[in-house]
């Protein structure tokens, strides 16, 4: 189904039309096989880059598209409705480039941003560690100054498209202070001393390779530090506020894809001499799925509009991530139900949608952590 959207400009409408075309022509025919084979779609990332989709929300002066988050997120949602893991890759890239756009010196942005946003580069986000998931203050990776360089040692876990990235946004410890001791770094691919673990054998999103990234005496120039020493936590959290909106949009798109599949199936499948969509018991299931999708969309769009208006949006971003990921979980589960036994097989994408939905409740802050952020903001 074509989603009813209120877009803020004619260029946004034209952009969504191109995205729709790319999804139908290029993504839809490839997604099943690539997910089955755990095949990272490098050439499609390249196509998204060429089309300008990897730099939409960044300033035009920096080589971005100058688009509001409201538009960028709906593009992301549209892609996720066809290919979830590709949309997540796109969201993670935006997250990874955002620190350079917001916390860099003029010198740094001039040197690095044009290429990062030019469409040929893919960024990854290296925050989590095996012992530091929800608790970022437990990060152990160290960056030690040495002349005009930093020497980095440690292991980052769970890095989405880690081995395929052209740069990593790295968070490492520059002092022992748990929260005040973190700093952010731009690490270009090809840096010596960087290796990767084996791909995680995940439940879903298999086309987006997730690996550990290992830093062993890796040296980077000191001017690749973003912001001040000790500013890392603030940078990580600010990036995550926006990143959560990306995940909310992805979750909404995934749920929309599952709903579309279920509606199509309900019209075709006959039992008791009728299309199963004619049974009220099933109609109510579909209606609830649709309500969940639309509510998720409305929630992330409000947060995005607050962000676009330069108003605080952190709580709304957490609410959006919570609501949209729970909606994705519910809607994809119900989509399997609508397809019955066929939904439980790999001949239909419903079971894949269900497997993909689960992770949206976990990454970029688990939904327990989102509730902590929301409650903290309420009780402040």
């Amino acid at each position, binding site marked *: 189904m074509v989603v009813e959207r209120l877009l803020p400009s*004619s260029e946004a409408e*034209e952009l969504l039309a*191109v995205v729709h075309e790319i999804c139908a022509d290029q993504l839809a025919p490839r997604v099943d096989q690539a997910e089955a084979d755990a095949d990272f779609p490098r050439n499609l990332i390249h196509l998204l880059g*060429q*089309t*300008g989709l990897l730099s*939409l929300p960044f300033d035009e002066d920096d080589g971005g598209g100058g688009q509001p988050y409201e538009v960028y997120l709906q593009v992301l949602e549209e892609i996720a409705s066809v290919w979830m893991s590709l949309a997540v890759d796109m969201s993670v890239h935006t997250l990874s480039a955002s620190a350079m756009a917001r916390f860099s010196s003029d010198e740094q942005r001039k040197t690095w941003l044009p290429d990062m946003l030019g469409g040929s580069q893919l960024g990854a986000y290296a925050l989590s560690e095996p012992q530091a998931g929800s608790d970022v203050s437990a990060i152990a990776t160290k960056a030690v100054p040495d002349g005009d360089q930093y020497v980095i040692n440690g292991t980052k876990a769970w890095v989405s498209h880690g081995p395929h990235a052209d740069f990593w946004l790295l968070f490492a410890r520059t002092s022992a202070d748990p929260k005040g001791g973190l700093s952010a770094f731009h690490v270009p691919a090809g840096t010596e001393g960087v290796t990767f673990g084996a791909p995680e054998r995940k439940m879903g999103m298999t086309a987006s390779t997730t690996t550990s990234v290992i830093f062993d005496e890796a040296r980077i120039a000191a001017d690749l530090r973003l912001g001040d020493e000790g500013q890392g936590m603030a940078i990580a959290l600010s990036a995550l506020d926006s990143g959560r909106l990306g995940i909310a949009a992805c979750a909404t798109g995934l749920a929309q894809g599952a709903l579309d599949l279920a509606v199509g199936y309900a019209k075709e499948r006959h039992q008791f001499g009728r299309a199963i969509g004619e049974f009220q018991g099933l109609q109510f299931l579909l209606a609830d799925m649709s309500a969940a999708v639309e509510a998720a969309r409305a929630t992330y769009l409000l947060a995005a509009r607050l962000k676009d208006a330069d108003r605080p949006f952190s709580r709304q971003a957490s609410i959006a991530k919570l609501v949209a990921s729970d909606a994705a979980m519910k809607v994809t589960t119900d989509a399997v139900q609508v397809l019955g036994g066929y939904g439980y097989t790999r001949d239909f994408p419903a079971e894949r949608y269900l497997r993909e939905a689960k992770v949206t409740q976990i990454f970029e802050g688990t939904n327990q952590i989102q509730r902590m952020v929301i409650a903290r903001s309420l009780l402040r």
Partner: protein
Amino acid sequence: MKIVVCVKYVPDATADRKFNADNTVDRVGVQGMLSELDEYAVEEALKIRDGDESGDAQVVVLTMGPADARAAILKSLQMGADSGVHIVDDAIHGSDSVGSSLLLAKAVERQGADIVLCGMASTDGSMSVIPAMLAERLGVPQVTFASEVTVDGNTVRVRRDGDAATEVIEASTPLVLSVTDQSNEPRYPSFKGIMAAKKKPVEEITLADLGVAAGDVGLEAAWTKVEAYAERPPRSAGAIVTDEDGTGANQLVEFLAAQKFV
């Protein structure tokens, strides 16, 4: 060098297509789009322009159709064409290929073109006659159904893949060139292209601008007349070959041969 690309705005084949009371295709009340086969013509034009060493080559897209047909120009401009010309006039309604080619030829003459690029066929009428008619009216050579194009100065060399043989032909500009869906891989508009297209000029012209009298085109002047039309009959069941005596394979091949598949 100036390249004029003729692009057609056609009803979206996935939507419901309708006819008017006068038995013409409803081109106004339906969702339309740039004919997919014409995307190859636009792409080829952009490639020729970008490969041109003089650096002053430009691509003009030309369409004839109702007001909504501007969408076909817009998409071409988003892909990278430089400007657009839209022939729009109520009197055009009902023009057949003779009338259409007259208007397109007049508009090309008004622009002046080294290369007139067309698709191999429209996706709705699909007669494939417009390129030949244009060449005839303009008095220039036609190199049609090109699946590969090389431009070297003012020489255009193309490969044509036929059923039985492949031929290579060439001609000097000015000429009319039509390309197949094998000729290239059309690009998608980029976001920068979408933004740039908003500032590109599109000229709307009428019969008067082309010096064509209303009576020379349109339904009345058409050489063809649609008397009646019918819905496509519903799909019938396919033929089933049951192999009972070992001749199944032969029957299968006979069927395929009868349909000209082998």
